[in-house]
């Protein structure tokens, strides 16, 4: 035999099995294109140059890893479908006298063809679409791109190397399957005897338990930091629970249905329950995967979209005023240069400070145990942050006088509570008024620790607390912080110039002030959030395609299997109409299940994700609710479209059975 023959055989095989191969090649090409694009953007110089570009590329770099791992796993998975259908044919070659080595050569050619075609088309598509994605991404982060078209040799090389590796592993895996099976096994693999699925009630119960635990966690988490820590635990619980419920739970449920003779022996239930029984056993894992992928898409797209849309809000939480100057000193007296420098630059620019927020505070860590707040208090009590503010500054911030007696303090707490007395490292106060709000809190809005704001009568009290924490913490003790922040009505460029000028002036006056401008951080912010959104969309798209493809293969595989069954049903007197009704209800139930489960997962994940978003400074829960609802709707529409498209393939195979009898 000559090499040309193997190549020809391989090409013919792919052509004859195009119903199986075409989607596989498309998936490969799609994964390759997706990977190239992410890789290209992560290494593109033009993206790197924009403000916030490096943050963006860090996020994309992370995305490169995710796409690579996902693509590898997913291609393996799809290839297993292809192999399952091909085994019979390979067995036939074996029986017809082709040795395993010859089969291996045919398969080498086949994999080679698939790899070549999908790499060529995937890279071409990737390169063509890379400019478009670059434009989209830069648009998302509010930048404009140049009109130069570049091909990244680096990205091409990485993509080609990665996928060549993946294809090589796939080939090895297929060869292993051929190597270790006899021709008879290969021939029969298409209709291997079915085992009655065992309903493992224990596993089913465990699945429900895990799912419940995950849901419980998601619902009961109170604060954002906890949410961050428990989120992954909840995710893993829910993933495991989903797999167990789909694999064992569904079989157990159907088994119970089958025990109920009155329910089971009805025309409408009989065939579908028994059909689903086997279908769920084999498809449980696949359906659970579709469900998990769908949930991931929903969480990812809704949260990243929400972050992106709420970027302005988040920026405002991080920077409560357009420009802030905070100065650390060892005296409670206001440092002279700050006010002067700000006023000078404002006058120069012809602007005025609005929403001025200026106050002094002293902050240190402590451990709270009831009414006592002990700095450096060892292991006892709960960690909290103490903020000491003089009464006069509180009054100037809130515009309302705060009258305190000697030895009396007002408090404002966040995440914790205090009683009628307060003992701060040995200094006692009687707690007078408890405030509901304190505008100055915005200066520390990003702190997620429990906080106690203590408003003391005079500067002497503040001094006493200052000395006390100085004694406890020594070199690590805090200084007085003079916070001076304001808004200006001017564009971002003017704001940036203004904060730079103020920074320069203060440096000259050698004040140890930090000047922060919201406008200066805008680039980073939108870089992160835009990047996350872009990545969310890319991964979302990949996952949707993956879910669609799993669906397609399920339908095709089942089509071939159900074909014979419906043929028999026809012969024993089931009408074409009954068969079609059964098919529809069965297939619909099976495919509606993951979508419904994903929506339920999303509903339970909602409170937790909402809390996570708070860590990113996004507190607009109604916005998140709207975005989530919209995401679910759009996703459901795509899902139904994918279902309709793939069920056509199924019907095309099965309807052969309903028509054949009258050929």
């Amino acid at each position, binding site marked *: 035999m000559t090499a040309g023959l193997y190549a020809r055989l391989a090409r013919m095989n792919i052509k004859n099995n195009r119903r199986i191969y075409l989607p596989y090649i498309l998936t490969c090409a799609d994964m390759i294109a997706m990977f190239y694009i992410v890789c290209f953007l992560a290494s593109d110089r033009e993206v790197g140059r924009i403000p916030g570009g490096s943050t963006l590329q860090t996020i994309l770099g992370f995305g490169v890893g995710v796409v690579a791992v996902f693509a590898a796993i997913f291609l393996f998975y799809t290839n297993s479908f292809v192999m399952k259908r091909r085994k019979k044919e390979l067995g036939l070659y074996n029986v017809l006298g082709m040795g395993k080595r010859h089969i291996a050569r045919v398969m080498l050619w086949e994999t080679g063809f698939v790899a070549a075609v999908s790499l060529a088309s995937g890279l071409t598509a990737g390169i063509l679409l890379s400019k478009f994605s670059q434009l989209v991404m830069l648009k998302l982060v509010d930048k404009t791109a140049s009109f130069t078209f570049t091909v990244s040799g680096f990205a091409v090389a990485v993509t080609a190397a990665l996928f060549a590796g993946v294809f090589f592993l796939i080939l090895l895996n297929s060869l292993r399957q051929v190597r270790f099976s006899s021709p008879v096994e290969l021939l029969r693999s298409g209709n291997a005897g079915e085992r009655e699925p065992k309903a493992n009630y224990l596993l089913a119960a465990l699945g429900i338990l895990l799912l419940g635990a995950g849901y419980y966690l998601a619902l009961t988490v109170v604060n954002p930091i906890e949410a961050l820590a428990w989120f992954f635990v909840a995710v893993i619980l829910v993933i495991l629970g989903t797999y167990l419920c789909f694999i064992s739970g569904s079989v157990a449920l159907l088994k119970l249905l089958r025990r109920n003779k009155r329910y089971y*022996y009805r025309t409408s239930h*009989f065939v579908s329950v*028994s059909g689903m029984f*086997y279908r769920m056993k084999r498809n449980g894992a696949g359906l659970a995967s579709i469900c998990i992928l769908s949930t991931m898409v929903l969480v990812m797209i809704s949260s990243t979209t929400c972050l992106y849309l709420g970027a302005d809000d988040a920026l405002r939480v991080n920077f409560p005023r357009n420009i802030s100057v905070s100065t650390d000193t060892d005296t409670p007296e206001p440092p002279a240069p700050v006010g002067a420098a700000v006023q000078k630059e404002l006058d120069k620019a012809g602007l005025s400070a609005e929403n001025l927020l200026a106050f002094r505070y002293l902050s240190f860590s402590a451990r709270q145990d009831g009414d006592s707040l002990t700095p450096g208090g060892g292991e006892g009590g709960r960690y909290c942050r103490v903020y000491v503010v003089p009464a006069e500054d509180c009054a100037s911030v809130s515009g309302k006088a705060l009258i305190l007696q000697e030895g009396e303090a007002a408090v404002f707490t966040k995440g914790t509570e205090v009683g009628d007395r307060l003992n701060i490292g040995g200094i006692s106060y009687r707690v007078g008024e408890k405030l509901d709000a304190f505008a100055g809190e915005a200066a520390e809005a990003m702190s997620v620790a429990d906080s106690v704001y203590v408003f003391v009568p005079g500067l002497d009290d503040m001094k006493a607390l200052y000395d006390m924490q100085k004694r406890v913490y020594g070199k690590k003790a805090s200084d007085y912080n003079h916070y001076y922040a304001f808004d200006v009505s001017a564009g971002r460029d003017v704001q940036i110039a203004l904060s730079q000028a103020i920074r320069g002036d203060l440096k000259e006056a050698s004040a140890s002030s930090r000047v922060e401008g919201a406008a200066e951080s805008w680039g980073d912010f939108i870089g992160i959030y835009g990047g996350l959104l872009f990545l969310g969309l890319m991964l979302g798209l990949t996952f949707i395609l993956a879910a669609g493809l799993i669906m397609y293969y399920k339908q095709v595989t089942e089509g071939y299997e159900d074909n014979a069954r419906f043929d*028999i049903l026809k012969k*024993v*007197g089931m009408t074409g*109409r009954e068969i079609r009704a059964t098919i529809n209800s069965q297939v619909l139930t099976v495919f509606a299940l993951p979508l419904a489960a994903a929506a339920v997962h999303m509903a339970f994940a909602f409170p937790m994700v909402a809390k996570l978003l708070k860590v990113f400074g996004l507190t607009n829960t109604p916005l998140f609710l709207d975005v989530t609802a919209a995401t679910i709707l759009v996703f459901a529409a795509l899902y139904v479209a994918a279902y309709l498209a793939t069920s056509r393939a199924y019907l095309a195979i099965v309807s052969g059975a309903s028509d054949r009898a009258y050929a």
Partner: protein
Amino acid sequence: MAILEVENLKKIYSTRFGGQKVQALAKVSFEVEQGEFVAIMGESGSGKTTLLNLLAAFDRPTSGEVRLNGRALSSVPERDIASFRRDNLGFVFQDFNLLDTFSLQDNIFLPLVLAGKGYPEMRERMLPIVRQLGIEGILEKYPYEVSGGQKQRAAVARALITDPQLVLADEPTGALDSRAADELMRLFCEINRGGQTVLMVTHSTRAASRASRVLFIKDGEVFHQIYRGNADDAELYQKIAGALTLMATGGDKR
């Protein structure tokens, strides 16, 4: 009274693009009386399977008519054909056609479930049949767990449970070893003695020798037929073998 009347049945298949026409049945006429056990024999390609498909209304004849209990199959509307088949005919196939997704009991119940019968009634109808067929002990098993002979007996039970006018069997012993085949034929005879009309298509002389009448088909026509009369199985076997030899060596149609 004739339960089945077949009159001038003709079937011509055309290839997919209508070019070639193949005549599967030329002109077949015969009758089956109530309580008869008729075997139809013929070589591969003689039109046996086509005939069976026409009798079962799986297919429509080009011309001619099939009447079951006096009712012409062509007068049954297309949408009622499935329930007509379910109510009047029982099928036994060479490859059993049992569903792997059902236990044997559920396979047997299948036609009754489709007819909308309740569980107690189905159970009541099934018990005497499975007892007669000797499979009452394996009802909870699945088709892939039992032997070919047991599968075929379950298939026979499925054919009988609707109490059909006529049981049509297509090479029922084709996939069985000789012992299972003999046992199955014994059961067919027993069922037939109970009054059930059976029409069986077969290749096997041994299987056909258990019938009360044997029809021979050649080139799409009924070529010859043998009545058992008073002959025992061995004598009938000899007659059938002789007729087959005659057919194979090209004897003229009588």
